């Protein structure tokens, strides 16, 4: 009987506030669903069976962590909004003679109900959609789907555990808030008179400075490694600056406008400017959150879509030919044996090599300092290096080889070289190798060669074309001695070709060549190491990685959008209640309903679309950095990135407008409910 009483109180309380509770519960359920989906996929044995599946599951389990942390923060934030609205009710109960213990019991019921509904709903839809997600994922990765429907008990368990934990924490936090306040405070907590927002010039200036620095970093960054390091610095700075500017900068702006009397005392501006100030003070943080979430969605989606679309391209960057054989020596006896092995296998399969490519080169890592390349291995120990941006992978090719590969007829004097730099520009007229005399750079040539090593490394590469290859070969042999313990030399022979057969044949050819070479190595213990690769064999891995990233990008994008929608909705509702009183007063002092509606409309629109606009600016400035980062994944297609980013932004804007129309209905319902 008594039990039922508290449960009923909790239930009616939630029903009376369903305008705020329903979206909250829906969001909770949405979070549960997303969490289940990702956990399900990361633990699903079917996914593990797909080629590249384990890579993907690794990425997905990272995603579960992100969602768990985000859910915790976000649900805490939205719950504080709910509690603020209900404090009056609790104050009334308290004055009517309910002790804090009784309130605790009501709250306990309430939390339990919300927890149960969102878990059941979320799991129901999660399980319902899990098959869909699995099919989508398998499709993305180019695998074949099975049509059995499974429920992952592990995923369900971790879902329940996580969200019961989060709701328990939220419950305890609410209790803390109720217990430290007295009933009168509770009763009036919603109507505390509000001070006019103070214009905080220092904070606003700080926001501008931080944003300017972050933008400067993003735009000026040159090499991808620095981009990787500074990306997170810039992200954190932009987040801080966004909050500062939305909260303080906007108020300062309104203050400046107010000081301009002939601007301020106009019908059009008078009410908008002064109410905007209050709106921004109250909702600045919420708007900044929306802006940041939007930016994250945009960056995540555009980069993952780009990566996925460019998978084939980066695959070809890593494996320039269907079959690639890299022999770690320039000893002609050995390389000829390797080439022969490949030709034999092709003959057995009656296949003709296409796009045949063979070249010899020297390669070592070096540190670039003032146009000098230093090959000392001690310097390369990252622990002793404070600027990883100086590391270069150096490739040396002979002029003959270059002319043959490019079909050109360059000539070089003995002290001249051609130079090609990837990922970053080379500045300087000369280049010096170790202690040799400086070489004049006759010409900077564009990228002429796809090299797997270059595309796997985050470091920029320098291709140096020299007239006297054999001389450099001796020097490199000397410098490579420090690597003797790894039994590798600086000399490489690349041998590759395309095949017209299907993937399985390609893989078979590769395996047979590899076996033949292994035999050679067994016969001769001095035989160099050889790396044999097939593009087809690695395709699944690549799609596993990029497909997984895209999938995660989409799922996290949905979660973030969900969060942004809820914040917007609550913003509209709380503004609606605040504006209702003002709406009445303005009418009494002689404004027509039309005038009021127009004024409010323009304010709401400004406030609503500010985050979208700011997100657009953020993404634009982040663009150079993102394109540099994508270089690390072997994606060189900037046009693709621009197209995808713009498409994502437009799509997102469309969604945003849709959300605006839905949530502004709630706002106008509340405001016009007054009259």
């Amino acid at each position: 009987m008594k039990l039922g009483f508290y449960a009923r109180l909790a239930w009616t309380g939630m029903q009376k506030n369903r305008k705020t509770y329903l979206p909250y519960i829906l969001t909770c359920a949405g979070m549960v669903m997303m969490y289940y989906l990702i956990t399900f996929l990361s633990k699903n044995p079917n996914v593990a069976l797909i080629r590249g599946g384990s890579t993907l599951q690794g990425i997905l389990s990272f995603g579960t962590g992100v969602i768990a942390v985000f859910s915790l923060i976000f649900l805490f934030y939205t719950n504080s909004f709910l509690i603020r609205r209900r404090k009056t009710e609790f104050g009334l109960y308290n004055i009517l003679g309910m002790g804090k213990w009784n309130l605790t019991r009501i709250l306990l019921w309430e939390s339990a109900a919300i927890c149960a509904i969102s878990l059941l709903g979320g799991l129901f839809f999660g399980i319902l959609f899990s098959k869909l997600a699995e099919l989508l994922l398998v499709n993305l990765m180019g695998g074949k789907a099975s049509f059995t429907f499974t429920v992952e008990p592990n995923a369900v368990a971790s879902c329940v555990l996580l969200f019961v934990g989060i709701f328990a924490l939220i419950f305890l936090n609410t209790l803390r808030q109720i217990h430290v306040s007295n009933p009168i405070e509770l009763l009036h907590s919603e109507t505390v008179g509000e001070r006019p927002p103070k214009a905080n010039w220092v904070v606003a200036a700080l926001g501008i400075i931080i944003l300017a620095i972050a933008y400067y970093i993003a735009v000026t960054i040159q090499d991808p490694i620095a981009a990787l390091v500074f990306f997170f610095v810039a992200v954190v700075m932009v987040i801080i600056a966004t909050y500062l500017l939305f909260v303080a900068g906007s108020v300062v702006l309104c203050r400046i406008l107010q000081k301009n009397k002939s601007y301020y005392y106009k019908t059009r501006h008078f009410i908008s400017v002064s109410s905007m100030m209050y709106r921004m003070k109250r909702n600045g943080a919420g708007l900044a959150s929306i802006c940041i979430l939007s930016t994250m969605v945009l960056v995540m989606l555009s980069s993952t879509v780009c990566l996925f679309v460019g998978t084939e391209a980066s695959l070809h960057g890593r494996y320039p030919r269907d079959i690639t054989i890299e022999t770690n020596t320039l000893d002609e006896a050995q390389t000829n044996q390797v080439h022969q092995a490949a030709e034999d296998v092709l003959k057995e399969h009656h296949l003709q090599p296409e796009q045949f490519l063979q070249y010899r080169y020297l390669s070592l890592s070096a540190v670039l300092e003032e146009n000098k390349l230093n090959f000392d291995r001690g310097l390369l120990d990252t622990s002793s290096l404070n600027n990883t941006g100086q590391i270069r992978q150096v490739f040396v090719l002979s002029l003959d080889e270059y002319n043959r590969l490019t079909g050109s007829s360059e000539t070089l004097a003995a002290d001249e070289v051609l130079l090609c730099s990837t990922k970053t520009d080379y500045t300087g007229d000369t280049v010096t190798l170790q202690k040799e005399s400086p070489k004049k750079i006759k010409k900077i040539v564009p990228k002429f060669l796809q090299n797997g090593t270059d595309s796997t490394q985050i470091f920029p590469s320098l291709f140096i074309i020299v007239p006297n290859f054999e001389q450099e070969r001796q020097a490199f042999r000397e410098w490579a001695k420090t690597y003797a313990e790894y039994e590798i030399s600086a000399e490489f022979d690349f041998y590759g070709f395309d095949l017209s057969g299907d993937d399985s044949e390609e893989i078979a050819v590769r395996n047979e060549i590899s076996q033949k070479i292994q035999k050679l190595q067994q016969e001769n213990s001095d035989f160099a190491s050889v790396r044999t690769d097939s593009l087809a064999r690695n395709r699944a891995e690549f799609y596993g990685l990029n497909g997984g990233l895209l999938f995660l990008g989409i799922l996290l994008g949905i979660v973030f959008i969900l969060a942004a929608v809820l914040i917007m909705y609550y913003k509209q509702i709380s503004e609606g209640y605040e504006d209702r009183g003002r709406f009445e007063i303005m009418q009494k002092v002689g404004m027509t309903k039309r005038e009021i509606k127009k004024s409010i409309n323009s304010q709401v629109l400004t406030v609503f679309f500010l985050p979208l606009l700011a997100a657009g600016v953020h993404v634009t400035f982040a663009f150079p950095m993102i394109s540099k980062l994508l270089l690390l994944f072997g994606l060189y297609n900037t046009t693709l990135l621009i197209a995808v980013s713009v498409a994502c932004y437009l799509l997102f804007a469309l969604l945003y407008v849709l959300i605006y129309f839905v949530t502004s209905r709630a706002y106008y319902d509340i405001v016009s409910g007054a009259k």
Partner: protein
Amino acid sequence: MSILEVNNLKKVYTTRFGGNQVEALKNVSFSVEKGEYVAIMGESGSGKTTLLNILAALDKPTGGSVLLDARDFSKIKESEIASFRRDNLGFVFQDFNLLDTFSLMDNIYLPLVLAGVPHREMERRLRPIAEQLGILELLPKYPYEVSGGQKQRAAVARALITNPRLILADEPTGALDSKSTDELLQLFAQINRSGQTILMVTHSLKAACHAGRVLFIKDGEVFHQIYRGGSTKETMYQKISDTLTVLTTGGDRK
């Protein structure tokens, strides 16, 4: 010359549930001369607020007419009502109705800004009014920083700044302490002496006895009226008190 004429005013509400008809005003007629200070008294539910809402053009009567300067309210177009109200009527409310997002000065400026008056002209008008009401120092403050009496004086300034034909006051002393009430009533008397017509709805005896004439409303009709004539505030108080006694003990109309 009468500034306001109210003829056979009638207002019927239909309740939301059950559709019962409630007659808030049966048949109200009176007129207000220019420069007069009229108080309307009556108990809760007597129809005072309904009457004031109709006079303020916030509500439409079911029957009868209201004429301000011989202009019939019902003839004014819907789109012009707001600007008509702004230009001709000044309002003082029980709960001040100041916007908390504006400083007192901006609150007072509000009707002028809406009317598109240039800033220089606004400043010129504000100064004498603010001086008269003693709020010159308070102008840059916000509503939450000042007392109820000060808020109400700012509201009076807002009502006066448009030079309205008529000031409508709805229980202006209802939310004030006795000292602020006295001050505000002094102020009203002073404003009235300088030629401003005031119509005040109240159920405070103390407020009503400052007026030049008191109308009593009961059950939606004007029940009785008292002119001050040459009598002092004390005798006026006594007269009103007697009338209220008759009203509440249920006397018939004489």
